[in-house]
């Protein structure tokens, strides 16, 4: 089960990916944590909610992070495309709140291919473009023991299968960790048998 996950995560190079849902920020940060190199974070200037570098220093060194505050939706896409094309950053994260059209999605995809980088758009549910390579839906899950548990669902994949995984954050190794299904945990009946 977890080997399937590791063939999908971190999402493939030279491609544009999308993530939605309340756990999207966690996904983006885990993605950035496993991508060496500078990360450009593009968002719109008017947004009141900001990423907090002190909080995300658990995931990646904030020194790797560059932020760009664009004026509007189109500027976010334009800045993202420019950065992807230049290939000087390893990952471009765009926070979007309007639907991406097919043209824009395809342009991001082409730019990521030219620059040999990865693009990740944080989108609202059901506003992605068909040009994206993968789309993930992430949501935090309440758990009595683990307070980083998330459910990640791969809901679109152009070159692979879909899947659902329970994910937790391993703070020591600074990477995500796949939680085995209830039946497959060490010590459970099916495993022993």
């Amino acid at each position, binding site marked *: 089960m977890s080997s399937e996950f590791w063939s999908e995560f971190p999402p493939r190079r030279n491609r544009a990916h999308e993530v939605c849902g309340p756990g999207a920020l966690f996904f983006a940060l885990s993605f950035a944590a496993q991508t060496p190199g500078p990360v450009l974070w593009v968002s719109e200037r008017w947004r009141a909610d900001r990423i907090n570098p*002190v909080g995300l220093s658990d995931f990646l060194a904030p020194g790797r*992070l560059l932020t760009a505050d664009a004026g509007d939706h189109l500027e976010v896409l334009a800045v993202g495309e420019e950065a992807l094309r230049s290939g*000087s950053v390893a990952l471009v994260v765009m926070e979007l709140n309007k639907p991406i059209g097919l043209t824009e999605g395809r342009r991001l995809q082409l730019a990521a291919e030219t620059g040999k980088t990865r693009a990740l758009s944080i989108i609202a549910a059901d506003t992605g473009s068909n040009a994206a390579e993968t789309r993930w839906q992430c949501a935090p899950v*309440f758990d009595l023991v683990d307070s980083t548990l998330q459910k990640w669902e791969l809901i679109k994949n152009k070159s692979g299968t879909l899947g659902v995984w329970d994910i937790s954050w391993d703070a020591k190794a600074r990477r995500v960790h796949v939680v085995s299904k209830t039946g497959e945990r060490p010590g459970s009946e099916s495993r022993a048998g």
Partner: protein
Amino acid sequence: MWFPKLASDRVLRAEPVDAPFALTLHQNNTERIYCLNEAAEAAGLHKGMGYADARAFCPDLQSRKADPQADLRFQHTLARWAGRYCPWVGVEGHDGLVLDITGSTHLYGGEAAMLDDMHLRLHRAGIAVRTGLADTRGASWALAHYGRGIAMPGNALGHIGALPVAALRISEGDSVSLQRLGVRLISDLVALPRATVTRRFGPGVLLRLDQALGRRAEEISPLPEAPHYGVRLTLPEPIGLAADVMAGTGRLLERLCTRLKDQEMGARVLNLTLRRVDQASQNIELRLARPLRDPDRILPLFQRGVDKADAGFGIDQLRLEAVRVDALPPEQVSRATVRRQDQLDDLITRIGNRIGLENVRRFLPADSHIPERGYIISPAAFSDPAEGWSAPRPRPVRLFPPEPLHHTGTEPPGRFRWRRMSLTTGRATGPERIAPEWWLADENWRFGVRDYWRVETKQGWRLWLYHTPQNPGWFVQGEFA
């Protein structure tokens, strides 16, 4: 050369006023007249007069605020202009210039002709000027301010002897005391025994006298010539293709960068002006993330601006100027690491020219336990990445302005509504008390200390709530991963 009305002439050149006019400056809590035109002087006003009094004297007085900085710039502009008469031009006080015209008078046909030329040109430009010409700096100052004309060589005393002692550039107090003693003219002062003057007034008065009479040397320090980073290319035939403009810009850049390299400078802001045949011109501004003087790197950054420019009927002049330059000393670099950094800088430049260079930022750590002040946001073009991040306790990955919750009590709510969602608390960790930094006045922290709780809801959301015990209320401020 003395410009008695430099400040008001500067303003009146821009917007002529045919009435009493004065510039006012706020000094010692009152508005005082800083400079005034002839009409205002004729009405009985003078410098340093209170503005309210002046208005009472002269009801139709027009006035503007004085701008001493702009006056200083104007004075330096005039100094540059005066370079047409001789290369040795210095600034005298805040309203004068001093020129050493030794050896350049014959170019204008003699001293008198040169002075006439100065007067004529400045009069045409609308600037009042008084000139004095003598062997020494002191004597010419005296002539410009209190007399007029040209002092013959070797006969300074003969010309300035009849001027009042104030013409010696001595302090106002000294000049008044000398007059009280009956020493009104410079010739009277020369007649006095030197020892008595020194005993009474110190060495200052005689120093000025000696300087004026040429017994002691006084130098003129010319203004340093500011290096000019501008190049232009005039074309015999207008061009219109973007590729041609880029080729022209490339040539200009090569020349400019050679000049920058000689001075060990790097361009920070570049301005490319395209002049079209119909005399309209377009500016393309390029702001760089790092000081640069490498033409191969700068040229591609102009591509976007040049593509957008409208060539009209053709462009016949290109002008490239480094508006802002920073020191860029040569440094040893290793090939491996620098390439990626250069690419990143170019990217910051390109993004910065699209959304504004100050909008590309990075985070720097700050030493504060207040969550919003635990970091500094700094423009990426003017800072370097810093290490030293530490979060002693878990901190949310996203912060937003506090959103109030409907709840009372000191324990976190069991059920609450937030962003139109109904949430149930599964586990609450806390409280963590954070006190405001009293040494900084912060409007957001006016409700006193905060007790922070990390609340994990059954619906999945992990939120950062706080309670303000000193002014009961509950707020949501952040979201954990």
